[in-house]
Every structure is written in structure tokens, then in C-alpha cells.
């Protein structure tokens, strides 16, 4: 594991060199907010940003993604037979992704890369990317990554970790993919003070002022938390929009749709959200999660209880705080997580 030092004067040129071998994505300010986008020639990632408004998950799982094409023209020999869409698997680099967003892909991977089935679209996109992470020196007040199994300098899911140290970046290569990226950039000067990253990490972690408690979630009985009285109060203000799920780096749910144009068509998948009544409604009209409170509960139960139990590897949340910042009615996952974690059916005699 090597640590390089990159003088900021050499940064732009290095990024340009990587564009010869990779399609490079980075944070760019558009209108008011930052988002991830493919960088054009001479376009640089904005390494002064805090985080992107929406998560970069769309680069692996686009909101609309073609899966198959087909023809309905019966004069064609292969009519009505689906043909797999080729996925662009050329090497890509996500420069400047925050550690929380990178490690979110690992949580999502458990869903798409299961022992029994593997999702080829997600995996091909994911495997094509080199994750050049950017440590957070100044986390936001809504970040609670350190108590969500992550952290401002968290390395899991990254190939390179960059740390901003004034007039230079420290770059820690974590994988072979990371070595290859740094070599492509031509950054070769090894740091003689690699230990500095650890000190910066401690400083950044100590700035995280927001925490959740998750220790009891696994042991709690599913049906007891499910029947807890605090859900009505928690769900009341919810307007059942998909903002929390669409902005979340760890939400992956999708819908599959066929769209025809004349005789040719595409089977697509689109993001979907457990907040929408349509998500679960049966053909008969029966809906197992027909009421708003059931849908709000599903979102939190999935992230903080079902996932915890299913994989025994922490909560399905990295603490990026987007859902808290973007929720139009201020439903705060930190509050709900603590309610769930602390819930004691024996002690609770009154509605929360």
C-alpha cells in the first residue's frame, strides 16, 4: 500500500493524463449544486466541494437503464425475442467520490451480487469503475457516518483515498486498480510522511457531531419494532415523495417497464421507491402497504432492521445525511434510528 504526494500544481495535468485511459467522472457545480458528471477535456473536478446533492449511484444504476431490445415485427425471424443490451464496460474513474458514497456501493452490492443470482447490469458498471475517493476534512453537521459503519476517511470500497493537505494531495493506493490509476496520472512521488493521513483522519472524525445508536437493532424482535407506537407520529408529516430514496446512495429498488415505439421496443428499468403506493399494489387492487405509515415504516425497517438481520453486517445506511437535508418535511433518519434502537415494548405505555 503506497502513499503518494501530489503537488496541487501537478494535479490538473495528471487528471488530463488519466483521461487517455479512463472516462473520468468528477464533482462539478451545475446551477446551485454539485453533481457527478463525465469530465470533458480540460474540465477539472471541483475538489473544494462538500458533497453532491444527489448520490453518484446513478453512474452504476442509472435512473433509466435499457436492459433488452426487441422487435414486434412478425416478419423478422427474431420477433418477440429479447436481446440483451450491450453495456459500456470501458474503464471509468470516479474522482473525488466521498468515502460514504463509495462504501454505499458495497452495501448495494450485497443485493446485486447475491450467492444465487447476479445482476449483470449493475456488476458490469460497478466493475468498470476505479473509485478515487476524496476524504472529508470538514464533514457537515448532518453527517453521521462514523456511527453508521463508515467515516470521513473510510477506505472500504475505494481504490485510492485522496486527502487534501493544503497545497498538496496525499494519495493512498488501496488496490491494484488504484495503482493503475495513479500510474496513468503520472503521480510518482512517494510521501515520506504517509502517517499524516492517520492524523488527518482522527481530526476529521472528531468533527463529526452527529451520531446514531444501532447496537440493539439486530437483537430486537422484528414484529415488536414493527408494531411500535412511534410509527404514526414518525410518518405523519411524510408526503410520500421519493426524495429520500432517490437521493440515498444505498437505495436500489427498481421497476421494469416495456416501452414500444412502433414495432420496436426496449425493456427498461427505472428507479422505484417504497414510498410510492404503486410499488406494492397487487393486480387485484389489494395493497399490502397501502397506507402511508406502512410505507414509511418499510423504508426504515428495511434499512435499519431487515438489512441488519439479513446480512449481519451493519445498517443499510452510510450516514451521508442526504435524506435529512432534502426531506421537504424534515423526517430525520437519525431520530427514527434511535427510536427503533431504544424501543422497549415493556417500558412504553404511551404513544411516543
Amino acid at each position, binding site marked *: 500500500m503506497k502513499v503518494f504526494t501530489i503537488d496541487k500544481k501537478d494535479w490538473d495535468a495528471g487528471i488530463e493524463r488519466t483521461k487517455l485511459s479512463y472516462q473520468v467522472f468528477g464533482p462539478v457545480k451545475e446551477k446551485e449544486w454539485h453533481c457527478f458528471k463525465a469530465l470533458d477535456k480540460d474540465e477539472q473536478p471541483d475538489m473544494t466541494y462538500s458533497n453532491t446533492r444527489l448520490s453518484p449511484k446513478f453512474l452504476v444504476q442509472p435512473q433509466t437503464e435499457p436492459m433488452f431490445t426487441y422487435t414486434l415485427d412478425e416478419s423478422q425471424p427474431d420477433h418477440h425475442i429479447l436481446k440483451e*443490451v450491450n453495456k459500456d464496460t470501458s474503464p471509468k474513474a470516479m474522482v473525488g467520490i466521498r468515502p460514504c458514497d463509495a462504501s454505499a456501493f458495497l452495501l448495494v452490492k450485497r443485493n446485486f451480487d447475491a450467492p444465487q443470482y447476479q445482476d449483470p447490469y449493475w456488476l458490469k458498471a460497478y466493475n468498470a469503475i476505479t473509485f478515487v475517493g476524496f476524504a472529508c476534512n470538514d464533514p457537515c453537521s448532518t453527517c453521521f457516518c462514523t456511527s453508521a459503519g463508515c467515516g470521513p476517511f473510510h477506505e472500504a470500497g475505494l481504490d485510492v483515498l485522496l486527502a487534501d493537505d493544503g497545497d498538496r494531495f496525499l494519495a493512498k493506493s488501496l488496490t491494484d486498480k488504484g495503482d493503475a490509476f495513479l500510474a496513468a496520472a503520472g503521480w510518482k512521488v512517494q510521501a515520506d510522511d504517509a502517517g499524516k493521513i492517520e492524523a488527518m483522519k482522527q481530526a476529521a472524525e472528531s468533527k463529526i457531531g452527529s451520531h446514531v445508536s444501532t447496537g440493539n437493532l439486530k437483537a430486537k424482535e422484528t414484529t415488536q419494532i414493527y408494531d411500535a407506537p412511534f410509527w404514526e407520529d414518525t410518518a405523519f408529516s411524510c408526503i410520500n415523495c421519493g426524495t429520500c430514496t432517490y437521493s440515498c446512495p444505498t437505495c436500489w429498488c427498481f421497476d421494469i417497464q416495456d416501452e414500444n*415505439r412502433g414495432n420496436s421496443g426496449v425493456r427498461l428499468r427505472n428507479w422505484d421507491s417504497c414510498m410510492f403506493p404503486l410499488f406494492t399494489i397487487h393486480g387485484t387492487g389489494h395493497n399490502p402497504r397501502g397506507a402511508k405509515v406502512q410505507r414509511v415504516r418499510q423504508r426504515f425497517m428495511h434499512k435499519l432492521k431487515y438489512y441488519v438481520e439479513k446480512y449481519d453486517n451493519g445498517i443499510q445506511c452510510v450516514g451521508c445525511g442526504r435524506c435529512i437535508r432534502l426531506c421537504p418535511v424534515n423526517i430525520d433518519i437519525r431520530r427514527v434510528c434511535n427510536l427503533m434502537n431504544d424501543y422497549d415494548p415493556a417500558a412504553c405505555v404511551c404513544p411516543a
Partner: protein
Amino acid sequence: MNLMEHMGIEPGRLQFSWISSAESTKFVDVVKTVTASVKALGPNTNYKKQAVKVA
């Protein structure tokens, strides 16, 4: 109608008329004028869905 024009559909592309089932000549006239005016505008490509891009 005003909102359609407001968001960039050309004036004349969308028209409303009130025709009784008895007013056959009015119906013919209206259809003639509408088709003529829309033909004069040419095809609207803005509001046409493009085929989905694959890969």
C-alpha cells in the same frame, strides 16, 4: 391552451372549437382550417419522444 403555448407549443397548433352534431358544414370548415394551419407550421419535433438510447 394558453399554458401549451406558454411552454413553447406554437400558437395555432392546438385549437378548440365548439361544434354541434348538426353543424356538418362547420365541422368540415374547421377541420380544413385546422389542418391547413398545422401543415403551415410543419411538424413539431420538440414534443416527439425519441427512441430510447441503448448503450
